[in-house]
């Protein structure tokens, strides 16, 4: 289990993490989403032991991460900008990782060679960005981690390789109970793989729930009110409303049954619940946190 509690981190007076709290159950795939500058990478750098929090706790499996070599041996991280030695090949980096990670599996490394199909004797700096990302995955997965911490992991990967990589990670989750925390802006992709989601903004985790809970907690209703009712009744708790012709689209923070029940009071001609995508949840949740898409005409 990954647990971040009330973590505060400031950089020269700027508060990057402000009482951030999140919790990832063991064996879960947790998607951390948020706008640019929300603090996702900062929280990831705390989870991998790079940064030390000003206050609060950062624990994996009940142990503090900071300067905990034994715990870090069970964590593999792929940052957005993975570092490799300037002249190193994948094989060089494999030897380097092997010297640090006691669980590193040469056998798995050899097996993954077929998956990634990269020339392991070629300097990594000569690879494309996507190939470098593949190399990072190759090594991270060979380290046989109990925790995989990924920051924008599939950026630069082609669709086939994305699916391949996710498939490998899901396999680890299923077979070895690996806990995965992944930060990404690709909400569509996260929706497919994550079972838990946390939304960050301004250094704070606004909410975190299982994806099912999240989708159950917010609903999109398409409603046609009877003649004479042109506006959405003021007493309805609506997060966002829009209208095309007579059809009103209402985003409401409740489940579908409750929303239908509330709308029935106005005898609508039509009241249909439509499932929300993660992207819509993200937009409407952050809209409440003053992060709405602004209608700016230039």
């Amino acid at each position, binding site marked *: 289990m990954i647990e971040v509690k009330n973590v505060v981190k400031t*950089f020269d007076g700027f508060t990057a993490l402000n009482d951030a709290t999140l919790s990832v159950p063991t064996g879960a795939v947790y998607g951390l989403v948020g706008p640019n500058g929300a603090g996702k990478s900062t929280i990831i*750098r705390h989870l*991998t*032991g*790079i*940064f*030390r929090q000003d206050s609060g706790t950062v624990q994996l499996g009940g142990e503090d991460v900071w*300067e905990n*070599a*034994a*715990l*870090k*041996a*069970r*964590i593999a*991280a792929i*940052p957005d*900008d*993975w*570092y*490799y*030695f300037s*002249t190193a090949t994948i094989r060089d980096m494999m*030897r*380097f990782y*092997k*010297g*640090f*990670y*006691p669980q590193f599996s040469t056998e798995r490394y050899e097996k993954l060679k077929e998956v990634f199909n990269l020339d392991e004797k070629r300097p990594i700096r000569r690879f494309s960005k996507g190939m470098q990302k593949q190399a990072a995955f190759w090594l991270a997965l060979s380290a046989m981690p109990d925790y995989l911490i990924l920051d924008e992991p599939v950026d630069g990967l082609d669709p086939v390789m994305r699916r391949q990589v996710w498939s490998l990670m899901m396999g680890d989750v299923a077979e070895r109970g690996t806990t995965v925390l992944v930060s990404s802006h690709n909400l569509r992709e996260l929706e497919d793989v994550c079972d838990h989601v946390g939304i960050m903004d301004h250094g704070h985790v606004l909410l975190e729930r299982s994806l099912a809970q999240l989708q159950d907690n917010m609903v999109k209703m398409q409603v046609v009110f009877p003649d004479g009712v042109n506006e959405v009744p003021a007493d309805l708790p609506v997060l966002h409303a829009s209208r095309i012709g007579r059809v009103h689209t209402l985003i409401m923070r409740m489940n579908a049954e409750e929303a239908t029940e509330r709308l029935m009071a106005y005898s609508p001609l039509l009241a249909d619940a439509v499932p929300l995508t993660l992207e819509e949840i993200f937009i409407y949740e952050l809209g409440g946190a003053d992060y709405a898409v602004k209608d700016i005409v230039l």
Partner: protein
Amino acid sequence: MRSKTLCFNGTLFRKNLSRYWPLWGLASFGGALFPLAMLVNLLHSGFDFWTPLETTQAYYNVLSYGVPVISIVYAVLCAMAVWNYLYNARSVGLMHTLPIRREGLFVTNVLSGLVMMAIPYAVTGVLIVLVSLLYGGFEPVGVLVTILGVAGESIFFFGLATFCAFIVGNVFMLPALYGLLNFLAVLTDFTMNLLAQGFCFGLNSSYSGTVEWLSPVVYLMQQVQPNSIYQENLVQNSVYAPYSTNVLTEVHLENGWLIAVYAAVGVVLMALAWLMYRRRRSESAGDVVAVGWMKPVFRYGCAAFSAILGGRLLYALFWESFQNGLYFTVLPMILCMIVGGAVGYYAASMLLAKTLRVFRSTWKGMLAVALGCIALCAAMKFDVFGVVRRVPAADSVKQVNLYAADSNYYLTPGQDDALIEEVRALHQAIINDKDHALTAASAASEACTDREVLYTYTTVRFTYTLNSGLKVERQYDLYLTRDRMAQDGSYDNLLDRLINSPEMRQKRIRWQDAGFQMDSAWITTRTGDTDLNSREVETILSAVARDAENGNWGVYDWFDSQNDADHYDMTVHVGYQMENHRYDSIDISVQEGMAETIQALKELGLITDEDLVLNRDAYPWQYSNNGWEEYDQFRNEFGMSPEEYYNRYGDYPAGWFGTEESITDMPEDSHSPSMSAGAASA
């Protein structure tokens, strides 16, 4: 499960060595060239090479002068190699994500750096030992001492570089800070003296060396030196006249223990670096300064140096020509310093904040810089710290060095108490008469072309070595007059009485003074130079001492010190070695009337009557009113210089360089100058 990597990681160690092999490989190659060159020379000379003692002397010379310079550069390169991951967000991210504690990273990187330092020295050392074994010059003690010395200096310089590495957050700042720290004390000393000598009467040195020990390279090179002892052997030969040779009998590394002290300091610096690493924030990668408490030090340090150096430069550019007298005008200097300080302060602030927009947020600091400039100038102008007034108490000094009348005088408490008191009284009189000294000096500098024998201009320097080892040095350019020299209690009078006292005349020779060990000596006559051995020097100096006692040598004429018309064209030079590898020398110009000295020189077979040619006879044009015109006429007439003519024929043609009436009349009351002791303390 605990990680198998805790305090040392072999993978990282090997990675460091393999990544940076060009660094230590190139250094090893460069080092290996020296033994190879030795081998080539050895082959060329038919294996006739140095003795083991001479080999040891060579090792110590390299250790003293070569290793500090090589180590200071190479250590920072090694430190940059092993610590460069700290300065990049990506690399620091990788290294701090790895399952190894910071002490593991630290220990592994320190060992990697030290091994990188050791490899080139080891390669070079092994090859040198092999070559020295070839020609039988191997001396194990010398090798061992050299190995320890190299190891100690490597530890120190790498420790210092490591310490710097954890203060900065940018790879380019590391060599900058390292270089600065190595020379900071010297630079501060120079900077403060540069400012102080523009304000304080008597401060004239641009460098005092007070805190030189804080500049390791300078101090090590000054202090750690081979001390070679030679034995003088007189060689009797049937073909040539007997001559003396010096044979090396012992070699010691003087002050070698200092290397051990510096090595210990290096270990302490590494420990401090480790403490800083424990608290280091990875996010400081890329910052100019990575340690919070160092930021104000950096900001105000830059401001201070910039205020003094920049202020001095601006003052020289814009105000020096308007300056009245010898010392700075306070208000323009303050203004220049504030401008200089502002440049340094805002430059440092911009570097720290990584933005150019610092003016609004840092004005309070700038105000502090301005107040600091005003306070510093005011303190110096009004001598708040008593620098100008200071004359060290007699019981607080362990040596007094007076430079006056072109000679150095070394006085030691217990032996020269009365003379020390006289020196202090002279110093006090100069300070008390500061206004006169300054006015007269200005007047003299304005009227320096109007030279008369009524006044003269001389330089006097007092150097007090205190019991604490610190030095107080003051130098005064004094304007002396015949009138004041006759007035009791004036500094002119005190100076003349002191310098021309019989005790000080004997002091000039340094004969039988335990503090001086003869280093080299020769006599220059019209026929050339002849080296003197210690027995000859002993004989000559005892004769000069007797001449001084008889009043035939050593009385200094302040108003006609350059006139050497009644000197023979003959000089005895004696060089001395003093404590702490300082050197001093005297040049005794033999003059008419030095009967004892001339007799001694003749008895030693160093001169004959033919050498006893007075300057006024040999070079008469130098002492007559129109001598140089006549000199030119002579050349045109005879097609050779008068010197050549005199050397060829032993006299000048009739009618040329008439002597009696053309030689400058000597003042009746003048003392005959008999010597000029060129004294250069090294």
